[in-house]
């Protein structure tokens, strides 16, 4: 070995320092804390939640699935507001085509096309993602109304729909199964697959990603296609379960999915976060919703609570806390010695 230089930052040895480093590297802290707090409170006030496990998992799947796709986009520092109406439009597509064997692929294909159009405006034209996807949100909700003639549409094959709502085994309904498949697929994609891992680079330092030869635009396309596909899948699930598609479906999806992703520690400016975090965020919200429902709390109040949680989550984001603490610190110190506590 030739000469070396020690600059600090070497690997910690010993179990506890190691453990501390590992925990320090995770991003899911807030989600875990919120989940634990909710579970602890419920253990005393609403223990029923723990017995209603199938319901709770179903709820988590409902909230979480769109959030998972959204997370792929957020990791790159982009937003996809169009998820809500992608869900509604794909749900309508499933209902208006009589043959489910054609309807489901058509709906999923629509999700992919939506992703491609979003990414086109964002990566090629250069429009900020929130505004491009906002236009898309609006246009697609219009499309959902057009396709459905502004009324709820029942699916032709009611039996298939009813069967879809039944558990496959144990408490696992197709919805829950699909949710976990999506979770595993995206989780593996962003942690194991090179293209997925590069999402973090695209979000964390886009210039560096370009300079290293990462095809940034192609990654943005991939991200929005994932998000479009997953929300279309959610639309398919909604419609099949309810056996009817409404053009206004998914009105609170935007709120719940952003809340789940942000609570889970996904940094809105990109580069920091995890799919597991989103799962934890969705779990907190799902458990909370079931508990509120069991306690007889009305839906508007539930929405208020989730809105409040989202607001708190977004202003306690590390960069927001830095901003506010910098502001406080910039005004306070007018002393030269550390004062006694």
């Amino acid at each position, binding site marked *: 070995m030739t000469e070396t230089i020690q600059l600090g930052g*070497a690997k910690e040895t010993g179990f506890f320092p190691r453990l501390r480093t590992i925990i320090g590297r995770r991003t899911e802290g807030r989600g875990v804390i919120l989940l634990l707090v909710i579970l602890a409170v419920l253990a005393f006030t609403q223990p029923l939640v723990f017995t209603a496990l199938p319901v709770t998992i179903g709820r988590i799947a409902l909230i979480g699935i769109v959030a998972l796709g959204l997370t792929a986009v957020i990791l790159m520092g982009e937003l996809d507001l169009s998820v809500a109406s992608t869900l509604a439009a794909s749900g309508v597509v499933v209902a208006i085509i009589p043959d489910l064997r054609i309807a489901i692929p058509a709906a999923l294909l629509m999700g992919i096309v939506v992703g491609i159009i979003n990414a086109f405006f964002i990566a090629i034209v250069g429009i900020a993602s929130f505004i491009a996807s906002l236009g898309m949100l609006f246009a697609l909700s219009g499309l959902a109304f057009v396709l459905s003639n502004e009324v709820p549409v029942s699916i032709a094959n009611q039996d298939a729909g009813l069967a879809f709502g039944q558990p496959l085994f144990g408490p696992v309904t197709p919805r829950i199964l699909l949710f976990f498949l999506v979770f595993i697929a995206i989780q593996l994609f962003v942690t194991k697959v*090179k293209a997925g891992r590069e999402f973090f680079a695209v979000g964390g330092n886009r210039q560096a990603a*370009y300079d290293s030869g990462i095809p940034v635009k192609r990654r943005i396309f991939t991200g929005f296609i994932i998000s479009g596909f997953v929300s279309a899948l959610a639309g398919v699930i909604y419609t099949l379960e309810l056996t009817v598609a409404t053009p206004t479906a998914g009105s609170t999806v935007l709120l719940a999915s952003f809340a789940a992703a942000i609570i889970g520690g996904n940094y809105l400016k990109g580069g920091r976060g995890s799919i597991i975090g989103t799962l934890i965020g969705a779990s907190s919200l799902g458990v909370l919703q079931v508990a509120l429902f069991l306690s007889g709390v009305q839906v508007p109040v539930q929405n208020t609570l989730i809105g409040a949680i989202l607001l708190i989550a977004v202003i306690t984001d590390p960069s927001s806390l830095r901003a506010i603490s910098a502001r406080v610190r910039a005004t306070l110190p007018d002393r030269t010695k550390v004062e006694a506590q």
Partner: protein
Amino acid sequence: MAAVVEAKNITKAFGGVKAVDDVSVSVEAGEILAVVGENGAGKSTLMRILAGIETQDSGQVIVSGEVIPKSDAKASIDAGISLVHQELSLVPEMTVAENILLGSAPTTVGITRTRQMKQIAQAALEEIGVSVDLDERISKLSVALRQFVEIARAVARKPKVLILDEPTASLTPAETDYLLSMLQRLADRGMSIVYISHRIPEVFRLCDTVTILRDGKQISVLDVAKTTPQQVIDQMVGRELKKDLESKRSSSPGHVVLKAVGIRAEGVNDISLEVRAGEIIGLGGLVGAGRTELVRAIIGADPRKLGKVTLTVNGKTKVISSFESAVKAGVGYVPEERRTDGLALTMTVAENITLPNRKELSASGFQLARKIRTFADDLSKRVGLRPPEIDREAGQYSGGNQQKIVIAKWLGRRPALIVLDEPTRGVDVGAKAEIHRLVKELADNGTAVLVVSSDLPELLELADTIHVVRDGTITGTLSQEEADEKRVMSLAAGEQVENA
């Protein structure tokens, strides 16, 4: 021997100004080539073109006889050109290993082979002799360590030629020392190295050949063994460096205007200083020494952990507790980054000048259009804005003129203290002289002036007293008579330089 990498007749213009003008360089295997020049000479642009990040207007990059396609970062990397950037280009939230293999991680059917990735990263780190936890996030590492990770990334790509752009800017002397010997080792093994620096001693210690750029043009290519530092500097500057003794001011400082005691902030470790009315205090030191952080903490533009700052104007002493209170008390601030922090580029000259002076130019919240016009017109003429058209967008002006607009903004407030951070970076020679004269005028009229500058001649010309900052503390204070480039540099670098 044949050249490994050759750049032929590269030309690149930004908005009509030629940043690189018909430059050709070539490196052989194992050769270390220095590219030197003043700020804005076109070094970085040339290197970005070599790395395929910037698109040249004309000219070719040839590696081992093959022409590399324009502006294709991936193709350049694959051909064997690896660039270590001046601005760190790591992804802060990714690990050391991931950053070293950014964009080039080994895969099987698209799936990252984590173990192999770590092995490659480890090998690259060992090759440059640096030990660091591969799973640590970049955001947790020191600036010096990040610099070495960046070099490891370049080395991991097994480049034919390694380009380093000012790699020692943020390193301590010991780290610099290590870096230079490490590069020598790499070159001994046959890697070609292009080394960009404006630190001449490093060039003479390390390099075989030196290419000198000035205003985008290639001035000469010299064999380092057959030249002297003085020759290189003369060619870089293109003029003789002399102290301009005629422009010396006879300063007679008045009362203490700024008093900063025990300032601690990010990168600043317990600094106190005073500036008197009519006095110009210079802050010298290397890039990253903590000067910008210091002045920003003093005036409240960035948070400070500890410290007390007061400003005394007309016998009244006010505590500076935030940037707003600083401006209110009579501080003007010309920031380092003129285009992002100093000006709103798409607003007009008049609007930019109005910004800090809006209270004086309005009555009960309503802007006084006519008063604004005469005010802005006056100031833009006073600072020598050319042409003094106040309805033009600030972004349309050249760098020197833009800086005059920033100064004009604050001149209007007749500030008690003005803080200037690198006031003439990227400014042409003519505008530079005008800005210097403006600063001296301000001091002559009783304003306290605090100047941060990495440009030694500038510091020596302007400052009545120079504080040299290193690692967040003041390592020495030199009066105008004592100060020369050598003394300032030795205090800045922390090396004992014998007095000749």
